[in-house]
């Protein structure tokens, strides 16, 4: 990290708030890595089922109080 900093401050023009393009790109990279880690988990069954349940016309309101929902009771 120290290397990155000293290198960056020598080789590039700092932008706003002392940000170099290198640091910006590093932040961007880490941010996306963190985010994509969750994205890669895909759609949990819980949500796939929820959206599927709404297949039937007029079914939407029933899910909310979830007589049959398995994982919502007993939380909190």
């Amino acid at each position, binding site marked *: 990290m120290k290397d990155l900093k000293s290198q960056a401050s020598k080789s590039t023009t700092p932008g706003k708030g002392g940000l170099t393009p290198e640091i910006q790109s590093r932040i961007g990279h880490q*941010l996306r890595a963190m985010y994509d880690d969750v994205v890669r*988990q895909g759609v949990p069954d819980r949500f796939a089922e929820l959206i599927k349940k709404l297949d039937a016309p007029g079914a939407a309101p029933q899910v909310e109080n979830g007589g049959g929902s398995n994982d919502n009771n007993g939380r909190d």
Partner: protein
Amino acid sequence: MPLTDSLRNDILAAVPSLRAFAISLSGNADRADDLVQETLLRALANIDSFQPGSNLPAWLFTILRNLFRSDYRKRRREVEDAEGNYAKTLKTQPSQNAHLEFEEFRTALEKLPQDQREALILVGASGFSYEDAASICGCAVGTIKSRVNRARSKLAALLYVDGAEDFGPDETIRAVIGGSGG
């Protein structure tokens, strides 16, 4: 618009990034999934108000973000202990080194003010344009740009500036931002 198959598929396709956004905002996977669930229910209940052809992910993110904001106000006092739960709840564990760096980054992200954090995530991770991010957050495009810039500066100060650990984030941030007050 009515809930067509294709719309349902589009909503489903947005779920992974909705979760990522929710986790980034709340720092807690369980709470994030509750937020996503609530978002989907709201979206489906209000699907008539979705304009065909408009940006579905942006619409869903707006719902989630608003739910989070109102939820946040309610829960503010109870969730101080949520810190540090994020990494534990991840299903895929990065390698040890990557993990440390990752953890450091996440901790820094959580130190950002909420406005800045959400702006940075929307633009920098979710890939929304400044315009879409502004509409999701209900503010001007210029406001989003400045929030993103401030967020980046703070992260840089927290993560990459020498001695950041030595004299604490506040002073570092002030030094880096150049005393912009606030």
